[in-house]
């Protein structure tokens, strides 16, 4: 199989992921898009590993090994990410990223203590 096919597929996947991260409003969908980007990278790793190992005398298949690491880390990342989204949803009743703007720079920036108090109130 020519290298072009998996490369094109992975770039398509990556672009879909980037679009999802930038454009989706639901936090869960954003996380899913992140997964898509990671998997695009995994695909690339496997494909290039196979392509490079054809010419080599002896190989450790480090690309495929790295893919396994990426999958494990992605699993952990999505677990934490979903837990955070769940907590935010319980707290705020929404998982809409556009509405989660606590770190925005407000017009009143001279009083850091009052905004800190507001934040404490919000998280309570």
């Amino acid at each position, binding site marked *: 199989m020519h290298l072009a096919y998996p490369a094109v597929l992975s770039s398509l996947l990556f672009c879909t992921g*980037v679009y999802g991260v930038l454009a989706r409003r639901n936090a869960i969908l954003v996380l899913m898009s992140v997964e898509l980007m990671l998997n695009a990278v995994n695909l690339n790793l496997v494909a290039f590993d196979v392509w490079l190992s054809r010419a080599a005398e002896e190989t450790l298949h480090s690309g495929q090994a790295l893919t396994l690491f990426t999958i494990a880390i992605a699993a952990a990342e999505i677990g934490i990410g979903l837990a955070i989204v769940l907590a935010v949803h319980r707290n705020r009743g929404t998982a809409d990223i556009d509405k989660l703007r606590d770190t925005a720079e407000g017009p009143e920036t001279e009083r850091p203590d009052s905004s800190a108090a507001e934040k404490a109130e919000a998280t309570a």
Partner: protein
Amino acid sequence: MTTTTLAVLVPLLPFLGAAAGLLLGRTAPGFVRPLAVLPPLAALVLAALVAVRQGGGQAITSHTELTPTGSVPIELALDIDGFAALVAVVVAFVATCVQIYSTGYLRDDPRYPSYAALVSLFTSAMLLVVYSGDLIVLLVGWEVMGICSYFLVGHYWETPEARAASLKAFLVTKLGDVPFLIGLFALGTDAGSFRITRVLGAVTSGGLDHPTVIALLLLAGVAGKSAQFPLHTWLPDAMAGPTPVSALIHAATMVAAGVYFIARLLPVFEASSAAMVVLAVMAAVTMAGSGVAALAQDDIKRVLAYSTIGQLGYMTGALAVGDRGAAVFHLMSHGAFKALLFLAAGVIIHAAGTNSLAAMSRMHGLRDRVPDAYWTMTVALLALAAIPPFSGFFSKESVLGAAEHAADGHTAHVPGVTGWIVLVAGLVTALLTAAYATRLWLLAFRGRGAEAPDHGRQPLTMTVVLWVLTIPSLAFGGFAYRSLPDWFDGRDLTPTLLTSILGTGLALVGGLLTYGAWQRTTALAARAPLGAVAAHPEGDAGLVEAEAIATHEPAYGDIAYAPDPADPGRLLLGPLHRHAAAGFHLDAVYTALFVRPVQAGASLVRFLDREVVDTYVRGAAALPRLLGAAVRRAQTGNVQTYVSALLAGTVVLAVAVLLVATGA
């Protein structure tokens, strides 16, 4: 042990006692009292041993140089002549008495450990001044005394009077110490050495280039330390400290240091006749002014403070007529009876619950409450008024005799006019001294009115010390005046007939005048009720005294003055009374001359800092703040916006790298 080792131990022991007291005061309170009393006592024994071995003969000198210090070497030097040996004995004796007395006086005071340690340090510094043969080492002791007096005068720092008095004592003495330091440097440079023996050698060989400037600069420091006009104002205010501290400062340490310093370096001063005239005028103004002021004070301790200033005036007067033997003789006898006066006054204040003479004069039978203080104070007042055969008579007559000798023009290096100035002022002061001593005695012990409060017997440690101090007040002068010339310059200290008759006669006149005035005014006392007593008369003496000082101003309107028509001083002084009570308004003059300009300068600096410098700083900060506000606008709180910006940046960078790599 060699005499040198003994002499080194004399200042060292109280110093070690002070260090140990400061370190152990909190952890081992049981050791505080032995550590307070034993080192000065040991120093007294050793100082007496040193004096016996020295015997008034050749001066014991010893020196070692720790490290080379540049052009004019500074050495650890001992120089013990007859003056040093005897003055050290007096210092250690008074300090021991004060430490023993303090164990009773401040027995319930929570800050007693640090107090006792500071008294020991004070003693050690004075002994260092006395024994030191090097002017810079002497200066170390001199300045340590300054800081100790600051701490001790401010012992009752809860009261605003004590805080103000301690600051005033420190600042006024420092005002003299700065010229003193410059004078020492000039002296050392001119003489090529800081060793006292070499300096005196340089003076006799005419090696000093600027004797008048040096003498006047040194005189400023002496005026500050020895409370001479015009730097005497700290001493009456220093009465806000505990009474034993007053006794220590007035009798042995601090104020004696200045007189002792001139006595040591008298040839330097004699090299300039202008300095001698200035010294004489200073002494005369101090003597007469303080006598008048003492006659108008209401606080018993302030009377004694002004009397100290006057007696120090006698000593500087004796130095001005070139007789340092008479000066140190008076210093020693004054040390004994002034310590006794203060310590007895402490007992009286404790018993009466007030420090106001006006209140005491309305108490009946105070002398029966404190018979020890009554008898010892009577002796001390007689010594102060120079009535024969008490010790003050012999020492004061030796001063007057020296002045008469100089007035006749018989003394070398001394202009006759200084002799006349000192003689006249000394005779006037003899009258005034007797007058205020009589007034103090009559008002304190001959009061009429309500029965004096009974607080039981005074602690034994306090009364025993009074009797111990009575012995030198009674007999020191009479026994010592024949043998002392062997220790000093060999100048005769025997009272001369003419000045003795004049001085004693004037003293009697002063005493009788006051008695007559008191006879006339005492009837008024019943008509003008007056008096305030401490809130806790059962407390220890220190507490009673602190309360008495704190209540004097609210009760009588002034710290030094009481509106008492029954005061014989008021009748004697007439319209002068009001001004004399305020110390002739010298403090007001200082306020106008120094305090106000300094405060105005401070507010100017404050204005410049707040309004001018800060404006520049704020202006410089304005532009960054504006830019910051603009940049902050980008922070919308939407994570996707940030990621979009990140992506855009990455794309731009990638394109740029590609363009560079392809060489386009």
